[in-house]
């Protein structure tokens, strides 16, 4: 049985370096990202330092997730039974298209053509808003950053803060031009902008019949779903409408409610750099007289089972979508989220997207890293992102074994030379001899222009020339 890969918004058409090149040409974007990522990095570091048992929490979080993956089929069945017993209706979706079909049908059955949405990576991944729109259903994003992106007709560029690429004055301009009911004379004060969003969405919240959410965690033992948020838009959607539809990736499970004692410490501190996010809501099926009376849960595979099949790569499914790895990543900081062309950007995206889609659709992403390791250091569930990147690079190279490649020829040649001390010593001398004339002309030991492929180096950096005498020749001569 082959395990099908995921569909939806997980890959783009351009190689990462080409997409990055475009984003690097946007100085305002760079400035915005620099400011935001450094702000959140420092906030995170401060609240993590407050906990003397942070490492123990990470170890527990990592082991709980590894445990979940090993027991995923039985835990899903347990979750389904508990949620159903509590009054929820559980649906299953093999891929993005099927998940969209299920949700569209459920919305249609309510007779409404308007839904409110809580920010959810799973619904971004399956491109639910587009599917609803094709079915004549308008979906309003209620998270402030999602609203900004939706109004701007743009795409999210960060897991936690999808509008991180905009600064306050750009957001003011988007509101003024596109919000319709934006107050006159709107300033770029964040407080004022938040107030404008409050007024804009309030009528919708108080009158909506159907809401769509994701979930941060799904508790197998009790059938409970958990959503963490800040603004109260989540509570509005989870509490006021008659019907609530939650789209949940199968990897979101936790065995028991008590496991939340680990993740409610790890997640807020890693994501927004807060001791606790302003609001966390949990619900278990239907509660009479309190909240939605029609509760649906859509469990989605969409490439997760294919990811689970890889023993090294499956740890990517442990991700709790905190974004800490994005915020510390020197590559993400320079290029932003759009360059990754998937809803999952940054280091975690570079290992998650290629596994969900299969390496062919995302073969440049595993190389979009210097392997500096900052992501692994901050990951609250200790996903060894550099290890998986290297593993996927191997898969990317292996997938092209039957095609000619200058890189492979060079790598093989170099390994052949390095494999033998005499060949190696001769190569060192040859490299030296080959560059002596160049050094004579330049009268220095660095060079500004080299031919392809070394031109990729000398485009921005001078290159060193071999030393007049290699170390081994010196050693031989003097010892």
């Amino acid at each position, binding site marked *: 049985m082959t395990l099908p890969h995921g569909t939806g918004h997980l890959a783009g058409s351009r190689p990462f370096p080409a997409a990055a090149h475009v984003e690097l040409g946007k100085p305002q974007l760079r400035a915005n990202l620099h400011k935001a990522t450094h702000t959140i990095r420092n906030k995170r570091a401060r609240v993590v330092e407050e906990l003397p048992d942070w490492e123990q929490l990470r170890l527990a979080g990592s082991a709980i997730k590894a445990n979940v993956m090993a027991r995923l089929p039985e835990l899903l069945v347990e979750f389904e039974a508990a949620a159903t017993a509590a009054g929820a209706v559980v649906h299953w979706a*093999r891929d993005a298209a099927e998940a969209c079909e299920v949700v569209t049908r459920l919305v249609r059955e309510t007779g409404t053509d308007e839904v409110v949405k809580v920010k959810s990576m799973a619904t971004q991944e399956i491109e639910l808003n587009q599917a609803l729109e094709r079915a004549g259903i308008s979906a309003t994003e209620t998270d402030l950053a999602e609203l900004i992106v939706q109004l701007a007709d743009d795409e999210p560029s960060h897991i936690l803060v999808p*509008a991180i690429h905009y600064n306050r004055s750009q957001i003011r301009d988007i509101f003024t031009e596109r919000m319709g009911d934006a107050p006159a004379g709107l300033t770029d004060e*964040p407080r004022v902008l938040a107030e404008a969003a409050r007024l804009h969405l309030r009528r919708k919240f108080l009158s909506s019949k159907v809401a769509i959410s994701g979930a941060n965690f799904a508790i197998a033992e009790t059938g409970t779903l958990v959503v963490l948020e800040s603004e109260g838009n989540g509570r509005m959607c989870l509490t006021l409408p008659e019907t609530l539809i939650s789209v949940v990736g199968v990897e979101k499970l936790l065995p028991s409610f008590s496991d939340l*004692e680990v993740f409610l410490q790890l997640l807020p501190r890693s994501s927004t750099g807060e*001791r606790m996010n302003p609001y966390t809501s949990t619900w278990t099926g239907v509660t009479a007289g309190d909240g939605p009376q029609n509760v649906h849960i859509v469990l989605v595979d969409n490439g997760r089972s294919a990811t689970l099949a890889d023993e090294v790569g499956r740890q990517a499914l442990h991700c709790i979508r905190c974004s800490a790895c994005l915020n510390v990543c020197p590559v993400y900081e320079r290029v932003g989220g759009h360059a990754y062309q998937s809803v999952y950007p940054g280091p975690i995206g570079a290992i998650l997207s290629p596994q969900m889609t299969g390496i062919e659709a995302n073969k440049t992403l595993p190389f979009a890293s210097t392997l500096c390791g900052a992501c692994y250091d901050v990951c609250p569930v200790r996903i060894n992102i550099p290890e998986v990147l290297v593993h996927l690079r191997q898969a990317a190279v292996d997938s092209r074994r039957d095609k000619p490649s200058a890189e492979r020829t060079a790598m093989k040649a170099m390994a052949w030379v390095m494999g033998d001390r005499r060949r190696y010593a001769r190569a060192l001398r040859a490299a030296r001899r080959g560059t002596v004339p160049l050094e004579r002309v330049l009268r220095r030991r660095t060079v500004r222009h080299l031919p392809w492929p070394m031109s990729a180096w000398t485009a921005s950096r001078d290159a060193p020339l071999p030393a007049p005498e290699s170390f081994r020749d010196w050693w031989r001569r003097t010892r």
Partner: protein
Amino acid sequence: MNAREEILNRLRTALGPAPTAPRVPREYRVDDALDGPARIDLLVDRLVDYKAEVTRCRPDEVAASVATALAGVTRLVAPAETPESWLSAYPGKVVTDGPQPLSVAELDGAGAVLTGCAVAIAETGTIVLDGGPAQGRRALTLVPDHHVCVVTSDQVAGGVPAGLRRLTPTRPLTFISGPSATSDIELNRVEGVHGPRRLHVIVVEPG
């Protein structure tokens, strides 16, 4: 094959015949290291840090503290079983939710809501509501723009594990840490979006 069976089959295939589930090391802090008064000090410190207003009082001062916190509020929403002793000094109109539930418009028209809570967590400055006594359904503490919450000292747990262990998982739970806020603009925290923009916690200490 239906989607459910197919997904479960795929996952079993992915895991192979004998997946091993690792043991979970739980060496993090679970017990409250702090005694009662220190826990309350920490709770107050953390609430204030996240921009909640806080009043500390003795059991016989609750009514006066509530009345002060609600100064200027003419219409107050309260859950059905709110203790009379909390409301006795409040001069405005109290609208009770139940037995007939208040409409969303009525909630939106109120100046504030007064509730108790199930548990408070000192280390994170969190109050947890579970729909139990003096808390009501979730909409009550969501729609009004001002939430006044009475916390008694016996409800205060030190850390997250201790707090969660006091809760019933299957009740609808709402964890509240400060007034609603957003970090969506340049990752700076700004208080006051869709949830109540004012959170006032009245901490009742032993007499």
